[in-house]
């Protein structure tokens, strides 16, 4: 039996086939990786609006009077300071401070939360949360009953508003709200993995196809997971399996904002202070068009081993080759000249500031895009 036969399908599978998407297995699911081409889909997201099937991501609901306390212990980010209607980026670490996964936590009610986690790790995460939660905390895997569609790009607000019972005119970054589409309640959050202003829409399965088609019929470009990767890379966002793994701790990623220092959590004893951390995730710009790839070595100018590339691609927005990699901290200053040691050749590169792409609309005021 082939892997493909063992892979799961999202509720939008037949929709992708009817749009002639190229499909491949991602995180245990057969997902659309490309429709019209990575560069076209990428540019549509940066300049206009595109739509992604992200139903494959894991969704775990946690509720009960101890839910907040339990999650404070399990996650690196602050949980209790979240307002209802707010969401936050964080990590789940093992006892040694290594990253099990990165995630977004949503506070649905005072004692009710949803974690959105990576598809390949959803069962590990679920078991980990269950193992470390109180007996009276209810933990439910809602992945299979909740569809998720991401509408991303500066032109996403008017497209979305046309479909809703009531327009969204004022929703801050990393906050969520509820609206109705054809009498079905949607949870809509101002988040995404592209850097652009956009929404992640959570809905019941039975409405997902209709919502997808309504967006596409409004002129939205269907986009595959390969361009989601080039978009996130241009923003310097870490990705599970590349930058996120249990051999690195959250401080090394540079996302110190996702680590609450005023509490203890699983692994916190082993998570060093930013000042003493020996390695750091950095942006890398290559001098040519040829890209670095995951696993390539990083050398100092005097050819000493200083790190490893974790992701690399051609950047459609910047029209040059960019990468992310972990390097020894003394080489992490932007502008530092380095060498990428690929399988067959060495390439000149330099450490870059993140994000690579600085024009993204993601954090801008929603009302300016209506």
């Amino acid at each position, binding site marked *: 039996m082939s892997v493909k036969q063992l892979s799961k399908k999202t509720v939008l599978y037949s929709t992708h086939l009817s749009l002639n998407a190229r499909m491949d297995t991602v995180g245990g699911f057969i997902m659309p990786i*490309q429709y019209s*081409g*990575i*560069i076209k889909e990428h540019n549509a997201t940066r300049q206009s609006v595109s739509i992604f099937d992200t139903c494959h991501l894991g969704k775990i609901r946690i509720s009960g009077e101890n839910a907040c306390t339990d999650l404070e212990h399990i996650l690196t980010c602050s949980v209790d300071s979240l307002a209802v209607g707010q969401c936050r980026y964080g990590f789940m670490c093992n006892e040694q401070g290594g990253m099990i996964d990165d995630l977004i936590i949503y506070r649905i009610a005072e004692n009710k939360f949803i974690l959105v986690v990576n598809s390949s790790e959803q069962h590990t995460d679920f078991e980990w949360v269950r193992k470390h939660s109180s007996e009276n905390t209810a933990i439910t895997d809602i992945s299979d009953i909740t569809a998720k569609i991401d509408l991303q790009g500066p032109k996403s607000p008017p497209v979305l508003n046309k479909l809703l019972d009531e327009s969204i005119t004022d929703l801050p970054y990393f906050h969520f709200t509820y609206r109705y589409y054809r009498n079905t309640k949607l949870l809509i959050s101002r988040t995404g993995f592209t850097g652009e202003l956009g929404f992640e829409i959570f809905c019941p399965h039975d409405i997902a196809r209709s919502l997808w088609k309504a967006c596409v019929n409004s002129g939205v470009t269907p986009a595959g997971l*390969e361009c989601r990767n*080039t978009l996130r890379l241009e923003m310097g966002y870490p990705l599970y399996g590349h930058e996120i793994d249990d051999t690195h701790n959250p401080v090394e990623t540079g996302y110190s904002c996702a680590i609450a220092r005023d509490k203890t959590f699983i692994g916190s004893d082993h998570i060093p202070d930013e000042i003493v951390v020996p390695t750091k995730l950095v942006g890398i710009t290559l001098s*040519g*068009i*040829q*890209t670095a*790839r995951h696993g390539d070595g990083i050398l100092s100018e005097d050819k000493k081993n200083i790190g490893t590339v974790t992701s690399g*691609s*051609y950047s*459609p927005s910047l029209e040059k*080759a960019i990468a992310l990699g972990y390097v020894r901290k003394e080489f992490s200053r932007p502008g530092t000249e380095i060498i990428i040691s690929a399988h*067959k050749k060495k390439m000149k590169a330099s450490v870059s500031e993140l994000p690579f792409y600085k024009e993204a609309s993601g954090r801008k005021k929603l009302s300016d895009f209506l």
Partner: protein
Amino acid sequence: MTPEDRKYTESHEWVKTEGGHAVVGITDHAQDALGDITFVELPETGTPVTRGGECCVVESVKAASDIYAPLSGTIAEVNTALTDAPELINSSPYDTGWIFKIKDIDESELDSLMDAQAYESFLEHNE
């Protein structure tokens, strides 16, 4: 459609003889599978190549792929237009998107390569 005036390899290169030289490129299937091509590392003129040996790299947004010489010989000419416009391979894989030419070839090596029909049937059975 797969052009019938040339031969094909299992690694998706095409080769067409033209005035004693062999012109080489990648097939429409290969360019489609690679997606948007962003960079071609062309071989140097005068480099000897061996049939089946790696001789150049084509990179797309998502991956880097080695191109293998379909015949033995010497690199006679490279398509320098690809340096500034690697996307020619996507838009015209069988024509302006050619990659290099080989001289000093042994035309009998062509016999073991697939014709258009055999290549199409190869794709059908291997996809």
